[in-house]
C-alpha cells in the first residue's frame, strides 16, 4: 500500500520569528536572528564563538503545571508548536486519541539545561543535592522528552518515533512520519524537532574549529553560507512541527493542504562520523528523486543544508551540481538564524512551504561573494518571485547521516 501524504498544518518558533507573518517578513526584509551568545555563567567565557541564533521574544505558552511538570525548556518549544498544528488542523479530539495519529518528534539530546543541573550534583557535597535527582529530571531530560510530552499533553496514543540524529533529527522525523502514513501504519503524524538554548553544543563545535568567530562584533553578518568569507556555523535554537495526513482523508474532511511530501531519502556515509561525504550526499539526493519518481529538472528550489563551514558547503555544492546541475534556485536558510540543530530540517521545511505559498524565494543572507568552488550553482542573491512546484530540503548530520525531503505544492490544482 502506498498512499499520498500531505501537510495540513505547520508552526515554527525561530530566531527570525514565531508567527508565520513575522517569519515571512524577516525573509523578505533579510532580517537576521543571530545575536550575541547569552552568558550561561559556566561555559560562555571559554567559548571563542560569541554568536547564537536566538529566540529572544516572549512566548505565551499558557500551559498548566499538570502539563509542565515533566517539561524542560526543549519540551516547551516542542509542545507549543505541536499545540499550534493541532489547533490549526481542525482534527477532532476523537481522532487525536484514536491511535491513528502518531508523533515523530525529537531533539539533539533532550534538555541540556536539565542535564546540566543533574551533573551539578556530582560536584556538590550536600546529600540533599544528590537526593534532588529524581524521575522528573529524567522525564525532562531524556532524549525522547519532546515526543512523549506531546503525546501526554494531547492524549495521543499512536506510534512514537524519536529520531535523535543531530542535524538530521527533524528532517528524519518528517521523513519517517511520511513513511508511516505512506505505508498505512498511521493515518496522520505530528512531525518535527526542537532544540533549546545550549552552550555545550556551541562548545563542541567551537572545539572542532567549526564555529564562526570572526563576526562576534557583528552577529548579523554570520553565518555566511557559500560566501568566500564564511568562517563556520552558528548554533541556534528553535522548533518546528508539521502535521502529515493521508491525502484522501485530509481532502474528505476539507483540510487545508499546504503541500505534499512526495519523496524522502536517508542514508549513511558508512565511515567518517564528522567529515561531509560527496558520495553519500549525492546518493541521498538521487534516492529521494527515485522515491518521488521525478526527474532532477522537476525540482525548482533546493533548501541547502549550508551550515557555512569551509568544507561542508563545497561538498554540498558539488553534490547539488552533480544531481541537478545549475538550474534550481539554491538558498541556505541557516544564514537567517544559524543552525537550529534538531529543529533545522523542520524549520527549513516550513519556511520553504511559506515561500512556495507566497510565490517567492528568499536569498542566502551574507552571500556577498560566492566561493569559486560553489559558483556553479544558481544561488538566490535577492528576493526572487515565481512559482516553485517542487522543492528539496536537504540536511546532513554528524554521524554521517544524510536526508533529503521533496515537497510539492498541491499537485491536484497544479498550484
Amino acid at each position, binding site marked *: 500500500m502506498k498512499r499520498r501524504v500531505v501537510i495540513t498544518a505547520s508552526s515554527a518558533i525561530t530566531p527570525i520569528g514565531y508567527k508565520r507573518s513575522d517569519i515571512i517578513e524577516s525573509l523578505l526584509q533579510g532580517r537576521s536572528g543571530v545575536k550575541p551568545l547569552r552568558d550561561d555563567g559556566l561555559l560562555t567565557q571559554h567559548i571563542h564563538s560569541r554568536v547564537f541564533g536566538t529566540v529572544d521574544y516572549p512566548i505565551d505558552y499558557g500551559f498548566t*503545571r*499538570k502539563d509542565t511538570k*515533566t517539561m524542560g525548556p526543549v519540551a516547551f518549544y516542542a509542545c507549543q508548536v505541536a499545540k499550534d498544528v493541532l489547533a490549526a488542523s481542525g482534527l477532532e479530539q476523537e481522532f487525536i486519541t484514536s491511535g491513528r495519529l502518531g508523533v515523530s518528534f525529537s531533539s539533539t539530546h533532550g534538555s541540556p539545561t536539565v542535564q546540566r543541573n543533574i551533573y551539578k550534583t556530582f560536584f556538590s557535597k550536600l*546529600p*540533599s543535592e544528590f*537526593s*534532588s535527582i*529524581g*524521575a*522528573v529530571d529524567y522525564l525532562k531530560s531524556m532524549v525522547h522528552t519532546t515526543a512523549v510530552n506531546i503525546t501526554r499533553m494531547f492524549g495521543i496514543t499512536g506510534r512514537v518515533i524519536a529520531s535523535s540524529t543531530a542535524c538530521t533529527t527533524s528532517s528524519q522525523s518528517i521523513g519517517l512520519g511520511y513513511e508511516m502514513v505512506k505505508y498505512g501504519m498511521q493515518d496522520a503524524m505530528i512531525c518535527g524537532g526542537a532544540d533549546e538554548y545550549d552552550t555545550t553544543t556551541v562548545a563542541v563545535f567551537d572545539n572542532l574549529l567549526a564555529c564562526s568567530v570572526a563576526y562576534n562584533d557583528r552577529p548579523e553578518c554570520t553565518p555566511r553560507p557559500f560566501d568566500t568569507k564564511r568562517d563556520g556555523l552558528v548554533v541556534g535554537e528553535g522548533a518546528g512541527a508539521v502535521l502529515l495526513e493521508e491525502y484522501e482523508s485530509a481532502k474528505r474532511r476539507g483540510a487545508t493542504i499546504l503541500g505534499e511530501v512526495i519523496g524522502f531519502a536517508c542514508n549513511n556515509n558508512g565511515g567518517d562520523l564528522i567529515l561531509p561525504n560527496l558520495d553519500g550526499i549525492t546518493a541521498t539526493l538521487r534516492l529521494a528523486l527515485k522515491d518521488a519518481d521525478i526527474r532532477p529538472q522537476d525540482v525548482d528550489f533546493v533548501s541547502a543544508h549550508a551550515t557555512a563551514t569551509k568544507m561542508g558547503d563545497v561538498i554540498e555544492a558539488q553534490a547539488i551540481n552533480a544531481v541537478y546541475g545549475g538550474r534550481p534556485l539554491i538558498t541556505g536558510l541557516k544564514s537567517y538564524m544559524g543552525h537550529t540543530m534538531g529543529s533545522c530540517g523542520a524549520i527549513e521545511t516550513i519556511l520553504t512551504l511559506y515561500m512556495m505559498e507566497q510565490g517567492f524565494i528568499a536569498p542566502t543572507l551574507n552571500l556577498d561573494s560566492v566561493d569559486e568552488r560553489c559558483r556553479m550553482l544558481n544561488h538566490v542573491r535577492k528576493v526572487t518571485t515565481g512559482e516553485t512546484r517542487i522543492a528539496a530540503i536537504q540536511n546532513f548530520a554528524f554521524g554521517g547521516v544524510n536526508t533529503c525531503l521533496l515537497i510539492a505544492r498541491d499537485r491536484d490544482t497544479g498550484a
Partner: protein
Amino acid sequence: MNRDELQKKIISILEDDFEFAHPGLTDNLRDDHGFDSIDAIELLAKIETMLGFQLTREEKEKAMSIRTINDILDYIEAIQTAHHS
C-alpha cells in the same frame, strides 16, 4: 512541628507548588486534584527538605499508600516520631 503547623505547611506546599485549589483534608489526591506518581516523588523530595533529613527506601515505599492529605500528615508524624525515638 505539631499537627496544626504541619497541616498549614503541607497545604501551603500543595497550593503553591502543586496548584491545588481548595484542598480538603479527606479529598482523594488523585481523583480530586490529579495528583499522580510524578507528584508523589516531588512531594517526597519536599518533605525531605522540610524535615532536614533523607528518607530511607523503606520510608519512601510506605508513602505509596497515601491517598489523602490526612494520610500525608499521618505519614510525616510517624516518620518524625521514629526519627526522634
